[in-house]
């Protein structure tokens, strides 16, 4: 909730000045030159003038503004609701929003006109909703909001009064991520992934002879009658896995035009990370988040549930790109244990992230790298020929580094939304746990 800094006052408008001037001069001319026709001409304005004078508002209203949804997903609409105290003879309210980055008022500038009605008067306040649309993830501001009131005939105007900008947190939009493949090596206690070991679960494994401790409801009567010995059905255990989502926010390349336009590498990175986290959390897996950034580094321990999902999205929403000196020193992943699936989302501009991914893979961890430098991201436009040449060389080096890491068994997947990880996760699951290499 935000209040106005200045309550303003009811001021005479040009319209009222016009009525006074035209009526006064017209009246004087009509009297001096004895022209009743001129008096008739100014009569409407005289009536308007008297009406306006009698209905001049005596008090200034109190104004407040708030957002119906302080946290929204990018592309979604919310409403800035301006609440103005009811004042006698204040009959029209106008609201508009100042231009703010990544927040668009609808219609243009969030311009809204509201006519004060009986309902407003009975409840003692007018509520003027203005639609706002969040165009890009991040922490933004709506407004400042300008509010003005008009008396009858537009003779007196209150405001425009400025109400402080309203903070809004915009969560990244999750793309239609659609992994059907199982997580590679689940090690948790509960979940929806089929484990490699037998245990309590829903997926059939085999029919085997009865052992002490088996549940009676698992007895397979048909087989038991045929063989004359008790047999039970066994199943694979259902387990969860720990998915460590790692976001490389050291660099941001390309131009971001919001949810409806072109996306930068950081846009792709954040949206991909949000999608991956959402998908695995919905599966009941534990998801942790690590953001590598010189400005907004973050670490969220593994967790599950909707609240954890919200926490991850809010952390991603405040991510700011900033390079870090000696990046490799800051890339330790202390929460990565056996059975963890590491999903590294990066534009892979710096070799440090790839080096770290290769090290993890060599230690037996399942690592998937999502390449956020996808088609459509425009490289920086350099007028300088040398800089352009340096960029091309760096891209060639990057291609070589990607080939090398893939040769080491780390899959690199360009982020393409739905189904990006399906094939990779299937291959990792088939491959089985990697042998830990010492040193």
């Amino acid at each position, binding site marked *: 909730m935000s209040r106005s800094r200045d309550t303003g006052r009811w001021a005479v408008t040009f319209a009222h000045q016009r009525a006074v001037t035209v009526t006064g001069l017209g009246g004087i001319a009509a009297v001096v030159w*004895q022209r009743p*026709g001129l008096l008739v001409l100014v009569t*409407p304005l005289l009536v308007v003038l008297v009406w306006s004078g009698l209905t001049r508002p005596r008090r200034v209203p109190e104004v407040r503004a708030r957002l119906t949804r302080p946290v929204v997903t990018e592309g979604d609409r919310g409403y800035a609701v301006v609440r103005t105290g009811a004042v006698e003879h204040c009959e029209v309210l106008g609201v508009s929003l100042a231009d703010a980055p990544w927040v668009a008022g609808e219609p243009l500038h969030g311009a809204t006109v509201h006519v004060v009605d009986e309902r407003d008067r009975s409840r003692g306040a007018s509520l003027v909703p203005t639609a706002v649309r969040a165009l890009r993830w991040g922490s933004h501001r709506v407004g400042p909001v300008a509010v003005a009131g008009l008396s009858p005939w537009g003779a007196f105007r209150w405001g425009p009064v400025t109400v402080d900008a309203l903070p809004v947190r915009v969560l990244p939009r999750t793309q239609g991520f659609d992994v059907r493949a199982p997580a590679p090596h689940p090690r948790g206690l509960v979940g929806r992934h089929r484990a490699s070991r037998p245990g309590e679960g829903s997926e059939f494994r085999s029919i085997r002879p009865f052992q002490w401790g088996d549940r009676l409801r698992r007895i397979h009567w048909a087989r038991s009658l045929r063989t004359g010995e008790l047999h039970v059905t066994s199943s694979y255990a259902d387990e969860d896995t720990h998915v460590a989502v790692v976001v490389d926010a050291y660099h941001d390349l390309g131009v971001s035009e919001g949810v409806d336009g072109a996306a930068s590498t950081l846009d792709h990175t954040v949206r991909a990370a949000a999608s991956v986290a959402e998908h695995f959390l919905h599966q009941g897996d534990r998801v942790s988040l690590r953001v590598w950034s010189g400005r907004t580094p973050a670490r969220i321990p593994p967790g599950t549930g909707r609240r954890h999902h919200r926490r991850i999205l809010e952390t991603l929403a405040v991510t700011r790109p900033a390079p870090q000196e000696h990046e490799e020193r800051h890339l330790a992943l202390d929460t990565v244990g056996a059975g963890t699936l590491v999903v590294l989302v990066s534009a892979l501009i710096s070799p440090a992230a790839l080096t770290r991914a290769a090290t993890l893979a060599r230690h037996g961890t399942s690592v998937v790298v999502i390449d956020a430098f996808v088609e459509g991201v425009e490289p920086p436009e350099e007028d300088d020929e040398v800089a352009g040449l340096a960029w091309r060389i760096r891209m060639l080096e990057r291609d070589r580094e990607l080939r090398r890491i893939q040769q080491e068994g780390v899959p690199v997947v360009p982020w393409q939304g739905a189904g990006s990880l399906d094939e990779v996760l299937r291959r990792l699951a088939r491959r089985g746990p990697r042998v830990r290499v010492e040193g």
Partner: protein
Amino acid sequence: MERLFTDLRGASRQQALLRSSVVVAALVYSVLLVAAGDSTPLALVVLGALGLLCVVNPHTQAPTLLLLYMLVAWGAGVPSPWHPLTLPAALCLLVIHVACALAAGVPSAASLPGTLRLLYGPRLIAVAVATTLVWAVAGAVAASGTPGGIVAALTGLGVVTVGLVTHYVTVTRPARSGQRRRRERVVDQRERPKELGLP
């Protein structure tokens, strides 16, 4: 100037209609002026130009200039003290004044709600009725040939002066703060979006 045209380009359809009514009223007035008496083509061109200026600039003194010019053009172009076409001419002035006042008072990009028409329709009719009465009385006085004289002129001027002074005193009375004498019902703010039916 660029900002004014940007404002005009981004104007809502209702705002555009409201502003265009100023030009229409000015054109109707020029037709009435020609029909009621003598007028030069230059006067009509100036009338049209001022009308366009008001469309672009309703929140300045341009409409004042237009209305004063209309009065002068009528006084200079129509020789008789009273003419039957004075009534529609007066209504043109009313339309221009109200259209400019509303166009200047609200954001140009905002669409105007239908309730605004419901609010101003009866008001305009009431003012038109009052104007018709004055028009009829003025016509009767002009037809009777009642002499004016210095006493009538001084009385008229006195009435105008008293009116202006009364208006000045009324308008310059200070407004009170909204916090005092507040009779607003205290309602939980969280109820508001539900009341408005917003998501």
